[in-house]
């Protein structure tokens, strides 16, 4: 008997021993519909925050007081928005102790740089620039508790995405609240850092485009290589490097400094 037939037969026989009690499609549909609605509400709230951040940022540009001084006649939308949404109400309500000044002439500050929490400062890299180079990143600070692993902490902050204030300040990322908590582990062995993610693919639809994957890898690598003990880095989804890189339309690989 061929081994394939033996395996097939053993599996089918073994499977007959198991019988479950399906709860029925109604239950699955009820829960599925509820989760979908919750996700839509969360996304909508996020969108509102981003818009609010943009309005606040626009208001903070010197000279952008509703007159033509900020950009002549080709940016009437900003002026109109500023009239209807005062900057003071549009400031993002991030858990920051440095709520941006409502003064229209103050540059926005990154929300997390002055959080008075005892801990170690790590940096996370998010996409920046004008879009001409997809792999351009800028760093922003995050605080990791003194007792926590800084590398794991940095990646946990990274997958939470930039704050609304940071987005308004020009940072961007495909990481967002939807991918928060998606780092399973980040371990260094002999200089090789392996970062294992949950299956984040459904929450990051654009990552498989060439610009998307360049941006994603740039953020990951820049965050990884801030740590001197990391010489090389590899990424996995549920413990599988092939899965991660196939998603990005490549093959499993390890990056060096």
């Amino acid at each position: 008997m061929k081994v394939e037939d033996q395996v097939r037969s053993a599996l089918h026989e073994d499977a007959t021993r198991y019988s479950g009690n399906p709860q029925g499609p109604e239950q699955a549909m009820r829960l599925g519909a509820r989760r979908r609605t919750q996700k839509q509400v969360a996304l909508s709230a996020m969108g509102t925050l981003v818009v609010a951040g943009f309005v606040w940022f626009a208001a903070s540009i010197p000279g952008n007081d509703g007159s033509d001084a900020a950009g002549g006649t080709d940016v009437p939308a900003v002026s109109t928005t500023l009239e209807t949404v005062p900057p003071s109400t549009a400031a993002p309500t991030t858990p920051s102790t440095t709520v941006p000044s409502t003064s229209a002439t103050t540059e926005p500050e990154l929300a997390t740089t002055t959080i008075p929490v005892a801990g170690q400062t790590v940096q996370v890299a998010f996409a920046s620039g004008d879009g001409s180079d997809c792999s351009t990143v800028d760093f922003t600070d995050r605080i990791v508790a003194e007792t926590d692993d800084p590398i794991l902490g940095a990646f946990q902050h990274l997958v939470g995405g930039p704050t609304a204030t940071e987005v308004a300040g020009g940072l961007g990322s495909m990481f967002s609240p939807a991918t928060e908590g998606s780092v399973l582990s980040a371990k260094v062995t002999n200089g090789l850092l392996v970062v294992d993610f949950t299956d984040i693919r459904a929450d990051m639809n654009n990552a498989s485009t060439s610009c998307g994957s360049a941006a994603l890898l740039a953020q990951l690598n820049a965050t990884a290589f801030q740590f001197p003990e990391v010489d090389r880095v590899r990424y996995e989804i549920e413990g599988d490097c092939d899965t991660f890189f196939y998603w990005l339309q490549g093959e499993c690989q390890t990056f060096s400094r």
Partner: protein
Amino acid sequence: MTGPDTLRVESFEAFYRRAWNPVHRAVAVGTGSSDLASDATEEAMVRAYERWNKVSNMENPEGWVYVTAINWARSRLRRRKFWSEAPVPEIAVDDPETPDPKTIEAIRHLPRQQREAVIARYLLDLSEAQMAEAFRIPKGTVKSRLNRALTTLRKELS
């Protein structure tokens, strides 16, 4: 309920009734636990409905639900391991009675990815292309996992 909604509900109901048992059994054979497989299959079905527009257009939605269920089961076992002082095996065997214990044991001792591939191929009867879609890996990787698994099983069972 409007027309498209009715269709959506009907197609999911039919899928659920058709796919629940095969997926449950595949997960149960792989994990050795019917209870864990039930929870995992229910959760995967909820996720399937959540994304039904996308999942229903796949060549083989059962494959997607199977992979989602085994991923969920694995993280459940990992969490149990984390919270438990006693070591929890990757496979949570409830019932030792198996018609062909030697073959099933050999399958269960395969590396996880190979074991999942063998079950998808020989129990769920997914084609290599369907497996590549469900596991979201290249077809070549599916082939090599299956080949490596069969080589090991040939050696073990000879």
